[in-house]
């Protein structure tokens, strides 16, 4: 089965800096990869989707890259704010409508 690896340790950064989160996957590349944000006590919320043939996708302060050679996706938040503090999950799509989720990386943005 597919294994999704995200940094289990929390990422602590200063407000205004760029946060970079990593998602590595094993075996074959997914057709799509989505990123979600999860706040305590809430369900994940969709942020961005990137396709296999796309290298980069942007949305406001968010940027996602997808490197099928490295089997890795990077998620960047520029000009980070304390409100960006949350757990971020990557979710590759392999089979029809079946998403696998990583365990997530907790981001702490300090003012």
């Amino acid at each position, binding site marked *: 089965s597919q294994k999704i690896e995200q940094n289990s340790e929390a990422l602590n950064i200063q407000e205004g800096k760029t946060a970079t989160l990593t998602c590595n996957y094993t075996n074959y590349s997914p057709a*799509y990869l*989505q990123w979600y944000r999860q706040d305590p006590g809430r*369900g*994940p919320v969709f942020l961005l989707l990137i*396709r296999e043939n796309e290298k980069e996708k942007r949305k406001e302060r968010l940027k996602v890259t997808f490197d099928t050679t490295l089997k890795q996706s990077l998620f960047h938040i520029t000009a980070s704010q304390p409100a960006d503090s949350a757990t971020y999950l990557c979710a590759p799509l392999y089979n029809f409508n*079946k998403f696998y989720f990583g365990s997530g990386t907790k981001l702490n943005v300090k003012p």
Partner: protein
Amino acid sequence: EAGVTQFPSHSVIEKGQTVTLRCDPISGHDNLYWYRRVMGKEIKFLLHFVKESKQDESGMPNNRFLAERTGGTYSTLKVQPAELEDSGVYFCASSQRQQTAPLHFGNGTRLTVT
């Protein structure tokens, strides 16, 4: 639009008892999923409905778990009899038919089996 709602938000039961979780997806969403997060671990897929049909139930841990989606609207997930290892947060998500459609999650049901 109303989001995905789950009920109850918390449930504490004793080992051997039965619990039924309910999920109301976003109206019009054909896809409905159940996921589970055991403490400290990743969110794991349990099963996927397309309308009332089970598309994939490969993630269901054993036959103590039964999911239904009668009429293709709301879904229930029953655990009978519950075991200690069933404790965790159960998430329901729904999406439109397109393969790239994002999942819309409910806030989950926190199940504690004592």
